[in-house]
């Protein structure tokens, strides 16, 4: 008789489904039956019979499994809760640590998701690109492009679906209708195709025509309410600044999404601007955004750009310079090309961010995520350490369970259940924490984050999943460690001997925790060092007691009168009018020295200052003199800085002449160098000092008025200035800042990084010390007898404290040694962002180590003292 075997798959399934005891016999029976059927009725019948058997048994099998595991988990749960309640101190330490760690990471996750979600609300977000230009050997990237480019691209490249040009209203301006006027900051120009590119919902108006004609304007809903209340603004007129022709309102759009990288309250039709009709390819004035057609590849489009530029810009270049564009390009320093930047990269990118009102910082995002992960890890380590430290207590339980038939897998499940319960209860506390901290966090990150578990379908399952994962990570080591005991040696008490490796792991984990904490702490010190350094570095100019009045153009002709009125007051020491201010934006302009060929023109940063400028800001002259009111030829005089002298290679700078117009080469029109000022840090300290030229702004009515006032009586002086302003301008809004604050604002990102480091290093150390506290109390409890014997033999309290804290001290010191190089390289890299940077002082490492040690010792010394003071009689009776 031939033996027909059922297929292996069915056999495998049956053996899996069946209960263990009778498996072989049952399999044997089935095989015999199968074989018999096979002989009598053929293979198909036999197979059908077997598979039917399998399928029919499934439902009850599953039911059986579930009810059995529910019973098991109910038991795990009960034991876990009992353990938590029994060891309240350890549970508290774990839950506090966990919940702080979780709150940190959830908050940071919120922040990061928010940062990453910028501009994603646009329906075509994944197909929108910003076109920019890049120049020169180092491929310097800007986000601006020439006026005719958008249209030319639409004509030339079939893969582009839409293109839009946009630009910003250059400065704050007053917008008014017949009865209201406000200072407005967020006005943008845009082509009417903006609606095809970005998702900007129009509430009233027709997207095809709303921005077509010159002098049309769209308002956002809240602006419409601000100016018109409940009235319908459509078709009404608004005036911007001092322009004579008003704008007609042709539409109302929804308020700007706060997660858009450009912010607007008003959108003015780009056709209003003369420049938008320009066919010049040399001016980089507009932001251009394109929508690529589905399935077209941006990198392939980029390959076509050089040809495109040559086709359009080439002829203009030839005409203007008498030189073939190809020839010009041969020199690497004349490199010029376009580049595409994906819309969703713009917010966090560091290049070409000229339009952003809310700028992200990718570095900040990285630092935050790393720190969050580490803090969570420190909390997990606490759990691991404390649970393994308690191993002797639990080892008897493990032994009993094993004797009674628990498998190792069941024990692992039990311990993991315990840690998951801890992490779930921490999650609840963390959620409460988050809701309490969120307003502060929002204020600090300048965001409007909302934390609502029910907000969307992802948050709740995500949180639960996150908590489970955290619980499992934290529980994994103790679970595997504790479940590995052999029941015989545990019940005999022999497990104590093999605890050596466990102690080593625990020490390593403690060192790891403190290493992380110390790295973050050193980071904090260095960030603050740099901030102090930047505050105290010699800027080369006076920064105190200067009030800046903004938009002083509004004074117009009355500026002189304003100045005189102020100078008449005792409290005002000087008044100067300038186009820009140190720390603000300066234009780099091409300058030609007289007698040098055009090809050698050099870029100098241009500052405009009047006669009082140097005195008010206390600029020091190293050669020559500053502009004087009494010398009329000073109208055409300039002052340059020392860097510029060196940059231009001048040996006798005084009397040298520049062509007056930027980049132009007109004979007979010169400005003369009359003085050289010492270098000042006129830009932020991220930058090296650049070659600078000061042009005389005496006859220009400039944007800012700097007023130097006497210390004290600041409030009175300010209100006096405001009175004079109102008197002379009518109802122009009065805006002022203190120069000092303006300068400090340059370093806001660094201040933010600084406070983040402070908060998180405090948290990291706090959680790590919580763990230490748990460990030391446990340690003291374990060594009760030893301490008792030592005391009876005459040990002093101090000796005992030493005994208990020695280990921790060594561990913290090891951590400091490991942490120092990491922290050094991390912070060294960070400092490379600054042209002017502090050095990392070795004392920082020493003091951080000592500080951490001090905190750790304070944490443990109380427990150690308590243990050392205990009455030896009592402790010897212990157990």
């Amino acid at each position, binding site marked *: 008789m031939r033996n027909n075997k059922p297929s292996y798959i069915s056999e495998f399934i049956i053996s899996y489904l069946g209960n263990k005891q009778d498996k072989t*016999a049952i399999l044997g029976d089935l095989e015999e039956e199968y074989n018999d059927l096979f002989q009598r009725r053929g293979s198909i019948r036999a197979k059908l019979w077997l598979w039917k058997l399998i399928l029919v048994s499934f439902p009850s099998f599953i039911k059986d499994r579930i009810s059995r595991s529910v019973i098991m988990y109910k038991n795990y749960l009960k034991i876990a809760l009992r353990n938590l309640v029994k060891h309240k101190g350890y549970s508290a330490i774990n839950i506090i640590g966990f919940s702080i760690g979780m709150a940190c990471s959830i908050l940071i996750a919120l922040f990061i998701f928010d940062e990453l979600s910028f501009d994603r609300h646009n329906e075509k977000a994944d197909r929108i690109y910003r076109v920019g230009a890049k120049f020169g050997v180092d491929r310097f990237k800007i986000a601006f492009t020439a006026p005719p480019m958008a249209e030319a691209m639409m004509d030339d490249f079939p893969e582009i679906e839409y293109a839009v040009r946009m630009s910003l209203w250059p400065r704050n301006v007053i917008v008014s209708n017949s009865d209201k006027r406000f200072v407005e900051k967020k006005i943008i120009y845009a082509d009417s195709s903006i609606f095809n590119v970005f998702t900007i919902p129009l509430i009233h108006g027709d997207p095809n025509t709303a921005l077509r004609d010159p002098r049309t304007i769209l308002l956002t809903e809240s602006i419409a309410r601000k100016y018109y209340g409940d009235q319908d603004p459509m078709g009404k007129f608004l005036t911007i600044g001092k322009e004579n022709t008003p704008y007609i309102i042709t539409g109302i759009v929804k308020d700007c999404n706060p997660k858009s990288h450009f912010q607007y309250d008003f959108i003015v039709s780009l056709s209003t601007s003369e420049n938008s009709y320009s066919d010049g390819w040399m001016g980089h004035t507009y932001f251009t955004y394109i929508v690529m057609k589905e399935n077209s590849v941006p990198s392939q489009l980029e390959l076509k750009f050089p040809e495109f530029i040559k086709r359009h810009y080439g002829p203009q270049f030839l005409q203007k310079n008498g030189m073939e564009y190809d020839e010009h390009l041969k020199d690497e320093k004349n490199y010029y090309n376009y580049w595409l930047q994906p819309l969703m990269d713009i917010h966090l990118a560091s290049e070409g961010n000229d339009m952003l009102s809310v700028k992200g910082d990718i570095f900040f995002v990285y630092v935050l995520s790393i720190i969050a992960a580490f803090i969570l890890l420190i909390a997990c380590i606490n759990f691991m350490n404390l649970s393994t430290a308690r191993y002797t207590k639990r080892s008897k339980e493990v032994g009993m369970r094993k004797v009674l038939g628990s498998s190792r897998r069941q024990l692992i499940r039990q311990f993991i259940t315990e840690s998951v319960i801890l992490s779930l209860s921490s999650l609840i506390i963390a959620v409460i924490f988050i809701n309490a901290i969120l307003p502060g966090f929002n204020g600090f990150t300048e965001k409007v984050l909302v934390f609502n578990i029910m907000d969307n379908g992802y948050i709740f399952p995500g949180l639960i999943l996150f908590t489970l994962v955290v619980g499992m990570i934290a529980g994994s080591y103790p679970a595997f460690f504790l479940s590995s005991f052999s029941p015989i040696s545990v019940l005999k008490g022999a497990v104590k001997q093999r605890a050596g490796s466990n102690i080593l792991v625990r020490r390593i984990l403690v060192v790891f925790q403190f290493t992380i904490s110390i790295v973050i702490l050193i980071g904090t010190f260095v960030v603050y060092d740099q901030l102090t350094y930047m505050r105290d570095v010699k800027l080369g100019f006076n920064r105190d007691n200067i009030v800046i009045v903004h938009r002083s153009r509004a004074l117009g002709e009355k500026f002189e009168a304003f100045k005189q009125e102020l100078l008449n007051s005792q409290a005002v020491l000087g008044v100067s009018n300038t186009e820009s201010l140190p720390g603000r934006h300066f234009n780099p302009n091409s300058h030609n020295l007289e007698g040098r060929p055009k090809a050698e023109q050099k870029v100098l940063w241009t500052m405009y200052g009047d006669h009082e400028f140097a005195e008010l800001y206390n600029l020091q002259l190293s050669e020559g003199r500053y502009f004087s009111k009494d010398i009329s030829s000073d109208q055409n005089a300039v002052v340059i800085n020392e860097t510029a002298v060196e940059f231009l290679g001048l040996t006798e700078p005084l009397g040298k002449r520049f062509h007056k117009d930027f980049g132009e080469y007109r004979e007979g029109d010169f400005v003369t160098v009359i003085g050289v000022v010492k270098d000042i840090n006129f830009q932020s300290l991220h930058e090296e000092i650049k070659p600078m030229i000061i042009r005389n702004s005496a006859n220009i009515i400039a944007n800012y008025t700097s007023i130097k006032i006497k210390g004290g009586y600041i409030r009175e002086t300010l209100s006096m200035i405001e009175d004079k302003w109102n008197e002379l301008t009518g109802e122009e809004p009065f805006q002022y800042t203190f120069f000092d604050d303006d300068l400090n604002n340059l370093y806001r990102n660094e201040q933010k990084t600084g406070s983040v480091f402070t908060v998180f290093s405090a948290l990291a150390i706090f959680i790590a010390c919580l763990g230490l506290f748990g460990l030391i109390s446990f340690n003291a409890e374990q060594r009760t007898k030893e301490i008792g014997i030592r005391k009876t033999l005459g040990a002093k309290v101090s000796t005992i404290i030493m005994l208990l804290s020695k280990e921790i001290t060594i561990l913290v010191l090891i951590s400091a040694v490991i942490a120092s190089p990491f922290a050094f390289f991390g912070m060294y890299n960070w400092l490379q962002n600054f042209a002017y940077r502090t050095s990392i002082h070795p004392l920082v490492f020493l003091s951080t180590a000592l500080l951490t040690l001090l905190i750790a010792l304070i944490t443990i010394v109380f427990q150690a003292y308590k243990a050392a003071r205990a009455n030896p009689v009592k402790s010897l009776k212990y157990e």
Partner: protein
Amino acid sequence: MKDLTLTEEMFLLAVWKLRDNAYGVTIRRHVSEVTDRTYPYGTLYSALDKLVRRGFLTKTESDPTPERGGRSKNYYTITADGLSALKNALELKKAMWGDMNDVILDKGLK
């Protein structure tokens, strides 16, 4: 003591009848042939297990046999308790049926 169910009774009886050759396949085959119904293995094993637990049957594992791919068989043997349970069941039925037989039943409702 709880009475045997009909299925239990049949399987128990089959084991007793089969003597030395009572294991899964033969038991099921015998009952199926006699009653002309198919009993699935699930019913068979759970009934046998229950009988073992109640002490009516004992289970012994045989040495592996070559014709079943080297697998052993679980042989069942009836115990004294099992026998008396069978006897009980038979007596219960006899007492109930009394003088009745199929001829009388066939007249039935007429």
